[in-house]
């Protein structure tokens, strides 16, 4: 079984935020207002954060989404197993199981799990904008990046209909698909021939906060030689 991973080359990344918009539209993430943003309720499954990375003096804009840890601090603390590590290494969130205690959001050192403070709303005219493959989360549950898991389900279905194995081009998350600078690479970390596995072994590779023992599957490549 694959172990999905993502490599982000910070040397290539231009902080253009195309990934942020792609994710927002792909996953029915609601919009904010100035007031909600100021109150810490801006919803984005992927965002830029200013992080001081190894060997780059000034803070670098790091695209941050769920790091899909192999040892996720968030899943252990969930009292109902609403969030768990799935067999393919994706940290999933099962919304109808979630009781909204927000223990997982507090346990996550990356602060990438979001809570639905209100019922998400779109203006009436924007109703058709929602992606039918992804549900709209009700108020009171935690949500997060799923590596666009619905795309995997569709790709797998398609591959099976075509009578072939799932190949690496079949399934990429929306952020990877759109990245203009081609800074993101997605694939199976367990396949030694995959591009992600090769890049993840590069000397520039680092996993953010890996000293916490989270073993993230999002690998960053630092800037510079």
């Amino acid at each position, binding site marked *: 079984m694959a172990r999905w991973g993502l490599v982000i080359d910070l040397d290539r990344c231009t902080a253009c935020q195309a990934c942020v918009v792609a994710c927002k539209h792909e996953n029915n993430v609601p919009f904010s207002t100035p007031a909600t943003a100021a109150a810490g309720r801006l919803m984005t499954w992927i965002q830029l954060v200013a992080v001081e990375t190894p060997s780059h003096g000034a803070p670098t804009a790091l695209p941050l989404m769920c790091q899909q840890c192999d040892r996720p601090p968030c899943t252990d603390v969930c009292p109902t197993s609403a969030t768990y590590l799935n067999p393919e290494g994706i940290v999933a969130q099962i919304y109808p199981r979630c009781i909204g205690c927000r223990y997982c959001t507090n346990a996550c050192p990356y602060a990438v799990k979001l809570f639905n403070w209100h019922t998400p709303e779109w203006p009436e005219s924007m109703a058709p904008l929602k992606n039918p*493959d992804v*549900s709209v989360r009700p108020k009171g549950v935690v949500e997060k990046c799923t590596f666009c898991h619905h795309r995997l*389900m569709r790709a797998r*279905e398609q591959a099976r*209909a075509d009578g072939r194995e799932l190949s690496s081009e079949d399934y990429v998350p929306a952020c990877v698909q759109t990245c203009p600078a081609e800074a993101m690479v997605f694939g199976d970390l367990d396949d030694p021939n995959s591009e992600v596995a090769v890049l993840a072994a590069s000397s520039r590779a680092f996993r953010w906060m890996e000293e916490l023992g989270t073993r993230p599957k999002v690998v960053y490549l630092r800037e510079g030689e």
Partner: protein
Amino acid sequence: MRRALLFTGVACIAAIGSSLILPAAPVTQVLAFNHAKHAALTCAGCHAGIQTTQRAGFPSPAVCAKCHATAPASVAPAAWEQLQTSGVRFWKPVTRLPEHVMFSHRRHVALARLACASCHADIGERTAPPARMPRRLVMNTCLACHRAEGASEDCAGCHR
């Protein structure tokens, strides 16, 4: 005071109990479609999506018009005309899944060769449109089958 509380308590228990026991609110269709009469057609003939898409889909008025050049006997010609010209799909879904469930007809019907009756029970033999879900579907309905067939039981596989 005590009696008022008692009254409220009994009413609450009755409300919750009846909601759990009684079947869901009935659905009435615009046309009294007779599935049994159309048994000669395959399901996919009208519900075109089942082989290729996630949703089975309902036939548009144009699909009916392929066979029914004029209004069927049970339908008023004026109403028929109006439905034909409006072009909207007027069928109301009876078997509905919660929003957080992802069910792909293509995966189950086209790839896994699951019979329609597994979930839709005897709808194909009904002479009148059912008012309620012909088969009560809960998570265990899905899980039982998944277990029996050795299909994935990963929560994220069906919960979206």
